[in-house]
């Protein structure tokens, strides 16, 4: 894409600029129940990405004509904070965030048991506080945990990450510089069974390279699933009684 002629080297002795192996994820940090007002919430870091997801519902649908007689509708709003990227982003939805919202909703909807809640809505809000390539996948991971935290009945969790191609090599979970100067990006999301619910691709790959990227991204999702699961088990196995609003800890400053 851009800057091909600069010929930056992305590998030194087989490791990437940040010291990762080609098939290694960035460090992940997940916290559940970080917002007091939301029915479910999750704060997540994937490398330098920092996202927060909140779930409200099932609740009444406004405007009412959006109601579905036989199931709940799911709404997903992906929003980037204006300070989340190098150059200030104009606040509010744009075409990219509209598309990301759509595919992210479609990544989660298949596992949500919407038929349990006719005429209602499950609202998912994802705010990107800091972006470093992979915000849609981080958002989906956080939203999936937040849905579980809200007690929304689901068939399973959804885990999401991307694979890319840099310097001719397929790598897992590209960071910003790899994404910008790389040759392809394949974000996916899947259930723990391996059913894929998000698949996008841009760049250029041979069919063989695509297969390798998809396999690598699936392996990444499996690792993320284990972390998501552990965070939820840890939180709910140790909880004796439901917490009241003011006992829920907010985000500390260093987390943001």
């Amino acid at each position, binding site marked *: 894409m851009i800057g091909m002629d600069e010929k930056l080297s992305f590998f030194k002795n087989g490791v990437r600029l940040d010291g990762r192996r080609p098939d290694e994820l960035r460090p992940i940090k997940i916290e559940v129940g970080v917002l007091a007002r939301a029915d479910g919430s999750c704060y997540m870091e994937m490398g330098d990405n920092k996202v927060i997801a909140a779930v409200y519902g099932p609740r009444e649908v406004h405007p009412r004509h959006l109601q579905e007689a036989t199931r709940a509708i799911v709404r997903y709003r992906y929003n980037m904070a204006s300070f989340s990227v190098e150059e200030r982003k104009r606040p509010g939805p744009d075409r990219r965030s509209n598309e990301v919202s759509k*595919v992210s909703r479609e990544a989660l909807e298949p596992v949500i048991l919407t038929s349990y809640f006719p005429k209602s809505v499950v609202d998912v809000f994802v705010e990107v506080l800091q972006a470093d390539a992979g915000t849609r996948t981080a958002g989906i991971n956080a939203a999936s945990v937040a849905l579980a935290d809200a007690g929304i009945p689901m068939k399973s969790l959804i885990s999401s990450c991307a694979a890319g191609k840099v310097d001719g090599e397929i790598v897992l979970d590209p960071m910003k510089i790899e994404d910008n100067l790389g040759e392809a990006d394949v974000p996916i999301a899947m259930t723990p069974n391996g059913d894929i619910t998000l*698949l996008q691709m841009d760049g250029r790959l*041979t069919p063989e390279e695509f297969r390798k990227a998809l396999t690598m991204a699936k392996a990444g999702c499996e690792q993320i699933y284990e972390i998501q699961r552990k965070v939820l088990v840890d939180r709910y196995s140790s909880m004796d009684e439901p917490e009241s609003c003011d006992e829920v800890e907010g985000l500390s400053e260093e987390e943001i």
Partner: protein
Amino acid sequence: MSDVVMAEIRKDYLYHLVLKGERADGRAFDEYREIVLETGPIRKADGSALVKLGKTQVIVGVKIQPGEPFSDTPNKGVIITNAELVPLASPSFEPGPPNEVGIELARVVDRGVRESGAIDLESLCITPGEKVWIVFIDVHVLDDCGNLMDASSLGAIAALMTATIPAQQYGLGEDYPLPVKDVPVATTAVEFGDAIIFDPDTDEESVADTKLTVITTADGSVCGMQKSGPGFISQDHIYRIVDIACERAKEIREKFLEV
């Protein structure tokens, strides 16, 4: 409510037809509807194409005009893709700014053109940092009978391949053809149970909850993909779709887009 019931009956019928190995219009699972491509129907545009994919009709107009480059790519031209799902094209389209379906359509068409490198953006630079050619690709859906992604993508590349840079009009020398270096073709499939069917019509789209669009380049690489719709898709099916997509795209490219 009666609408919901009717739709379910229709869906059930189509689904079971496919399980028996048939489609309502008699096509094979990997067979496209008849494609009719007409380039240059709009003389006032710098490039244009009318695509008929079965009964689906899409018109794509390309306008090229000088403008300012983005500050982070001062020596590159700009591509701007837009799609209008005008209310004349379907009872479910409503007037107003593009909704997410329209935005997704435009962005997938854009992805094919951009990621394939079909247009060499650096060749569109007039004065670095000041003036470059801006290529507007406007997709105008006329009749939505299914698979707008493939029809619009085909219209876009066909319009670009026949586009002229209107240099004379702006006092920038002689007019010349827009250089196009690759020919991306989008191919879309849906799954019904274990069956995969290509080029779905509107009924088939409404039965299957999920589509996969694969965009391939002239050398057989994949340059864009989009899963669309709230459903699952298995790795095995993805691979099968990519393989067949490469073949169908090659046929479409050879038949309609030979330079």
